[in-house]
């Protein structure tokens, strides 16, 4: 029966299922579902510790935000452990992490953002014409709509009106942000 667990094809599927459950919070991914879909020949009492082991490994990799060197070192260590993983399994896990890392990290980032996120931005520029006495004053106006929302909640829309002066004021602030980002991103 151990041979069944060592097969690599279902492992990829298992890791996907674990990621959906752990990182993307997809409901309904039970141990029984994974076993029956991917390892139907394996009895539940054997599958359970195997699943726990894989879940633990995936969590460690995600939690540690491992780069590829750290990942290889970590997986190699797992292959040398008593009751660890095979080198084939290590290869599958490595491949899985490399292709899913960004999405998983994004999901984890979103889970720790409790403020509104910026979901969308729409805008248009209107030429506003005012007539006072007999002269026509032409003031362009930017209408900007921000779509904001907290994780799992409905969007809220904020509509703002800007004249040219205000647009430039905001632009100046944004360039200050950009400068700060550049300073932060500079290698130490």
């Amino acid at each position, binding site marked *: 029966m151990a041979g069944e667990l060592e097969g690599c094809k279902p492992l990829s599927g298992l890791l996907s299922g674990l990621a959906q459950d752990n990182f993307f919070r997809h409901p309904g991914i039970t141990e029984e579902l994974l076993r029956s879909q991917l390892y139907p020949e394996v009895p539940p009492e054997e599958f359970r510790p195997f699943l726990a082991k894989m879940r633990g490994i995936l969590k460690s990799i995600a939690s540690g935000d491992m780069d590829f060197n750290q990942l290889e070192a970590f997986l190699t260590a797992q292959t040398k452990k008593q009751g660890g993983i095979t080198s084939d399994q290590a290869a599958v896990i490595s491949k899985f992490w490399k292709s899913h890392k960004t999405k998983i990290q994004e999901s984890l*980032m979103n889970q720790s953002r409790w403020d509104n*996120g910026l979901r969308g931005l729409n805008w248009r520029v209107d030429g506003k014409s005012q007539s006072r006495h007999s002269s026509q004053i032409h003031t362009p106006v*930017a209408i900007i709509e921000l779509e904001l929302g907290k994780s799992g909640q409905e969007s809220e829309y904020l*509509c703002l*009106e800007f004249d*040219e002066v205000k647009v430039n004021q*905001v632009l100046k602030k944004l360039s200050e942000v*950009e400068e700060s980002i550049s300073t932060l991103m500079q290698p130490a």
Partner: protein
Amino acid sequence: MEGSSEPRLDAKSQVTNQLIDFQWKLGMAVSSDSCRSLKYPYVTVMLKVADHSGQVKTKSFEMTIPQFQNFYRQFKEIAAIIETV
């Protein structure tokens, strides 16, 4: 304004607000209980806005760096166009 699902930017009766203040903060998330080693920078913006009646409210939101870059780029576009109108 809250939670309406009408189409955007076409409705003439759309309530618009004036921006009174724009504050920003650049932060770095280091660790969270779902991920011990995060290391991701983010920009938080705090807007103070007033509606037509003069009522002031604040709204804050967070952007990842790529989101911020997009936000900045769009504002530059708006500035370029409003100049030429």
